């Protein structure tokens, strides 16, 4: 039932199904996007979001019986070229840009594609690229090589490239996953500009707050089935999370008072030229300390200074009362610190290698036999111990890590670090790129580890997250710790205001 006064539809899908070797990726899904609308596609990993995008852009053919209408025209079969010609563009999470080419060349690249050789018309391309950036209200150096730009600006380049191809319906796959709060705000502003210019945007994101902020309507998918289409007005994050996961998520503050426990990590007057200024902090036994602040506040640098990846200029770090000054990660591990870096996909795990090797990589010393060789028996025992401890769902330990789902990969990273039997665990942005259901699992694990006596320093730029899950919250800005909060007596809203201000 369509209202006669409603704006025309950019995309209308009816009864869309897609089966891969007997598995239903999508089952009888209906989906529509109005012209110029910002529409959010929500759901956990594996719910069918990417499959839907791939069907619309012609990468996959739908199962028979589906109806597809693009800008009012019935489509029987879509090819990628056809989709692009109709004005459909996808901005994938990896952006698919060319790092060594200039901004202008990246924006105008699609005009160069083709088998027939033509001369490159640099001046015309530059002008066109500048015009598109103008339309977005953005200023970038057209001649800068792309790899000199921060991710946020690369996003802009990707959007400009889509517009250059006269896109009228743009899919954005997790565009904010690696952006900071302020960068995200900038991107959302650009998305609004697009929508004002009549371009429909389908936004895929795990961050519920921004979904509710930017979209007019949200379509929720779960296990390949349509849960429903909802207006974002009046929708809450909690409700949306429940729709996506199909279960109730707890949203209560978990903080405990651990001030009576002995200190595990004591940092005093730590400074790192230009990054960290005179930071002192304590993390106690069984305590989860949240460290929040904007990117560039020096949170990650502080962690790097503690584990010895960067040499602090001044200050002392004590672990269990003993001063330490690790020179590299190896020494930090030895001292009893485990650091789970933010970029788990490319830095935390060695994707093509096996689950077992990834699990024991940091504890080779513990699985040696009498002559100092790696003992297969001990290795197997170590792996199965941690896999069952963290309930990782795997096929065979010799399968590559890349064969696991995102949530299970998370668990393997944790297993790898917990196997080092650390005294202190530093988690850098543990939920970046993780879907709502799996986030809850991560925090449950964090809480359980703390109960077992581990001291945990949790870095995150999502204030809600730290307030909900930490025992104490430190606010960092400009390389300094500017405030300390007790989650039980702090209001999330006021704190967000202070951090994001």
């Amino acid at each position: 039932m369509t209202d006669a006064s409603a704006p025309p539809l950019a995309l209308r899908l009816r009864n869309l199904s897609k089966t891969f070797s007997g598995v239903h990726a999508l089952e009888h899904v209906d989906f529509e996007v109005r012209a110029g609308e910002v529409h959010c596609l929500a759901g956990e990993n594996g719910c069918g979001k990417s499959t839907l995008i791939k069907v619309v852009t012609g990468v996959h053919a739908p199962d028979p019986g589906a109806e597809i209408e693009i800008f009012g025209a019935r489509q029987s079969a879509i090819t990628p070229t056809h989709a692009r010609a109709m004005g459909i563009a996808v901005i994938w999470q990896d952006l698919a840009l060319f790092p060594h080419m200039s901004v202008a060349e990246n924006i105008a690249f699609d005009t160069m594609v083709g088998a027939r050789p033509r001369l490159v018309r640099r001046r015309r391309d530059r002008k066109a690229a500048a015009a598109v950036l103008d339309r977005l209200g953005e200023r970038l150096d057209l001649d800068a090589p792309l790899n000199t730009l921060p991710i946020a600006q690369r996003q802009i380049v990707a959007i400009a490239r889509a517009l250059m191809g006269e896109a009228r319906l743009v899919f954005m796959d997790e565009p904010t996953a690696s952006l900071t709060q302020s960068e995200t705000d900038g991107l959302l502003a650009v998305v609004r500009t697009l929508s004002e210019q009549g371009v429909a945007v389908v936004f895929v994101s795990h961050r519920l707050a921004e979904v509710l902020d930017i979209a007019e309507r949200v379509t929720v998918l779960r296990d390949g089935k349509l849960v429903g289409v909802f207006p974002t007005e009046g929708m809450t994050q909690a409700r949306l999370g429940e729709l996506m996961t199909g279960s109730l998520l707890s949203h209560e503050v978990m903080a405990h008072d651990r001030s009576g426990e002995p200190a595990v990590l004591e940092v005093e007057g730590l400074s790192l030229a230009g990054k960290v200024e005179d930071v002192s902090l304590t993390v106690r036994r069984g305590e989860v300390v949240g460290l929040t602040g904007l990117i560039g506040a020096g949170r990650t640098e502080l962690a790097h200074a503690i584990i010895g990846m960067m040499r602090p200029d001044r200050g002392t770090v004590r672990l269990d009362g003993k001063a330490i000054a690790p020179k590299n990660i190896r020494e930090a591990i030895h001292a009893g610190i485990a650091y789970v870096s933010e970029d788990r996909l490319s830095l935390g795990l060695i994707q093509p290698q096996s689950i077992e090797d990834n699990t024991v990589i940091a504890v080779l010393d513990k699985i040696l036999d009498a002559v100092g060789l790696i003992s297969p028996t001990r290795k197997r025992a170590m792996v199965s111990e941690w896999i069952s401890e963290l309930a990782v769902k795997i096929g065979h330990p010799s399968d590559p890590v890349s064969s696991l789902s995102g949530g299970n990969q998370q668990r393997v990273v944790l297993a790898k670090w917990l196997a080092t039997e650390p005294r202190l665990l530093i988690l850098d942005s543990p939920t970046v790129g993780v879907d709502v259901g799996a986030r809850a699992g991560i925090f449950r694990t964090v809480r359980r580890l703390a109960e077992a006596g581990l001291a945990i320093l949790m870095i995150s730029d999502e204030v809600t997250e730290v307030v909900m899950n930490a025992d104490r919250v430190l606010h960092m800005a400009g390389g300094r710790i500017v405030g300390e909060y007790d989650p039980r007596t702090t209001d999330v809203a006021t704190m967000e205001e202070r951090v994001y201000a």
Partner: protein
Amino acid sequence: MRRLVAGYPVEVRLLAVLVALCIGLSLTTDTFLTLGNITSLLNNNAVNLIWAVGLLVVLIAGGIDISFAVAASVVQYLSAQVFMVVEGNWIFGILVASAFGLCLGLINAALIHGFRVVSIVITIATFNAYFGLLMFFTKGRNIYDLPDWWTDRIYIFEHQAADGTWSELNLSVGIMLVCVVLTALLIRATTIGRQLYAMGDNPDGARRAGVNIWLMHCVAYGWLGVMAGIAGLCQVNIAQEVVPNALYGRELEVLAAVVLGGARLGGGRGTVLGCILGVLFIAITQNGLNLLGISPFAFQMIIGTAILIAISSSNLSFNFRPRRRAAEGRLP
């Protein structure tokens, strides 16, 4: 200007070293900066430079080719067979050599693309196959019986100095210049060239943008094949005979020169200028050692050291960037 320096750091640094080298040699020897020396330098390096720009195209597209020098020998042998039957001239000769070279290049492209195998594996295989078959069929024998047009010296520039010594440029240098200009046009000024860079830079992104990967492989390896064939033709003109194993082993030196000139193993980066500088750097070093009266047995040793120092120093100043990036933790 600053952008030029920042955008092409390897080229600029190499140019500076080269200029310093030339000034040094001009001051310490009185033979370096003479027309005779410079023309012979160019004559001796025309073949290498033709190969170098051909290889550059493959490197930019993200591949590598080990087989081109041996392929040039195969082209020489096949062309010689053709010229025994058909009367020819240079134009015809270049067409024949290009055609044979193109075929050999396309074989590489077809195997690499068809079986989805990395280029180094396939080209090492074809390197062995081409060389083995060539030696098998020629039985390692040289061919001296070549048409006159092929072996006659043709000079495109001649000059007699006051003391009566001649300095001249071979036809090879002219052909080399044409090859260099054409390659520069291909990679800089055509959409095909931009797609080659894109494919080397981000293969997956290029594929998704609709770049015809198969065509790009054909262009890259085909171009190198053509260049290999033409260089083979020129080399016969200089050597006056076809020796089946004469070019064996030259591929690695050309590779070193091209990479020294800033082309990135892995694709997406590299310029014709850098290529020229890389070849000249090795040529002038060798020439300078010669003029300085250093034992020819020491040449290779010193050139090896020079390359090692060159790559070490160019990497030293680069290495700080990734480290800072690691600290930010955001950029891939």
